[in-house]
């Protein structure tokens, strides 16, 4: 139930071109069923690529990703993904958006609306079923995206910096909200972020990636009880540990930036 194995996964971009870049280098990772795992690392370290490979939107250059023992070969409704940018379809009402996965499955209108309505209530948007995405705030749109993912009843949620585009207050509310939903649901969450406090606030376990090429630098268990107090001393302790870990990596990433930019312009 909800287990993902990443075995010796490497990813090379721009393969067979002079600008070949190794993004991920032999990453091994086990996502345990029901855990809240956060992947953190400097920008460009390949953390989103890793998540995309778990979702099946990207393929490893070498190595394997397994979901419940089966090799991931493509996207599947068994693994829901929530993106950084609001990804609700602008031409559908909120309830149609939330029920979209069920529509694709061919479920009847009444049944899927009933189900979608339940999940809309769960994310606190019960009164907005007939609204359209552009009529909602960014936070509401992300909550609806989460409802859409939950609607399919999958046991894995893959989240790619889902709150990065939100303002600080909304972001904090959304983190609490996400924990509420996750708590006792038995779902596995893999959450990518570059925000240290967010990682410590949410995670059971944090995986730190190095700057390019991405390797696993360390895995840290956060054994604090929830809800976590961002001002507590144990939170501070974790925070300084992560800052120490990431500082050198960020410096390295910064030095690489020139190289990265060169690469980016040459593929356009």
């Amino acid at each position: 139930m909800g287990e993902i194995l990443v075995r010796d996964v490497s990813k090379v971009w721009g393969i067979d071109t002079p600008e070949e870049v190794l993004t991920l280098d032999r990453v091994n990772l086990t996502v345990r069923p029901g855990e809240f795992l956060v992947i953190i690392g400097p920008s460009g370290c390949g953390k989103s690529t890793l998540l995309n490979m778990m979702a099946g939107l990207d393929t490893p250059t070498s190595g394997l990703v397994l979901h419940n023992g089966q090799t991931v070969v493509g996207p599947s409704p068994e693994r829901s993904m929530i993106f950084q940018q609001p990804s609700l379809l602008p031409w559908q009402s909120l309830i149609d958006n939330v029920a979209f996965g069920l529509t694709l499955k061919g479920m009847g209108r009444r049944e899927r609306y009933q189900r979608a309505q339940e999940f809309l209530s769960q994310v606190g948007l019960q009164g907005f079923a007939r609204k359209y995405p552009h009529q909602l705030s960014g936070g509401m749109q992300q909550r609806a995206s989460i409802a859409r993912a939950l609607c399919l009843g999958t046991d894995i949620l893959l989240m790619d910096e889902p709150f990065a585009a939100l303002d600080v207050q909304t972001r904090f509310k959304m983190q609490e909200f996400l924990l509420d939903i996750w708590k006792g649901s038995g779902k596995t969450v893999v959450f990518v972020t570059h925000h240290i406090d967010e990682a410590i606030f949410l995670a059971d376990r944090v995986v730190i990636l190095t700057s390019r090429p991405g390797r696993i630098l360390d895995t840290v268990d956060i054994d604090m009880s929830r809800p976590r107090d961002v001002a507590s001393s144990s939170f501070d302790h974790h925070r300084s540990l992560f800052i120490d870990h990431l500082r050198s990596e960020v410096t390295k990433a910064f030095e690489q930036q020139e190289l990265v930019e060169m690469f980016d312009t040459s593929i356009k």
Partner: protein
Amino acid sequence: MKTQIPLAAIDQPDLHSQAKRRRKNSRVKTLKHYGEKLGWLVASLTTFVLIWESLAFFNLIDTAILPPPHQFLGEVTNQEQFFDRQLGATRVGGNFVALTAISATLKRVFAGIFFGFIAAFSCGLFASYFRLFGKLTLPTITLLAPISATAWIPLAILLFGVGDSPAIFIVFIGIFFSLTLATVDCIKNVDQLYINTGLVLGASRWQIMRFIVVPAIIPSLFVVLRINFFAAWASVLAAEMVGVNTGLGAMVMVARQMFNVKLMFLGMTLIGLVGYTIDVCFAQVQNRVLWWKAATKI
């Protein structure tokens, strides 16, 4: 000294009535906006007509060639005697039945747009979804697109003779190539995020097309169609002038041949009015049916 803030004002914000007032205000504002626009339209037209009329009144222009508006608009009353359904879109001696001429032209334009849109849309989808088909057809379509629809008129007449078909063909040609290219281009530009969303929710290739690609490109295609409508309108009139012999274009042409200048100007006025009305209708459809595009584009 500090200014006192009246407490009641902060204490009891009557939100409901405030919202109501705001809504009413905005409605008044839109009404005002449209009123102002209409006012300037009338003012502009009046100025133009007044100058023309006074030039004619003081004999500064030759009214045999440039009859003032009241004369050629008066020509409408002469239309009455020809208002007979039996006549269809045919000519009666040196004169024409304007209403049937309009309906003949409109029929052609809409038939052409209808077939052109469907053909271009399917062709664009096909070219995007089946690589080989796209690679074989798109270069030729790209080369054919710059040939103006008017240049196809001689061929159309040779192919279809006189009647509705060559005119419909011209409109079809006028929008088909550019709309096919636009379809392919729009499909290429559909936000990958939406496609990925469909994929992780379990959509098949066909479902991605039906639920994501098609609704995503329709608004942009509609804009392209609206722009191309003017080209289609112009080319069908040209076709009617040179070979088709019925419709608004032929009405103007025959009026010139008969030296019925008033009828010629009446025809030109109708061409302008009908074209303008259709464009306004297009704009309305665009705003109502495809409202979400306007909301997300900005």
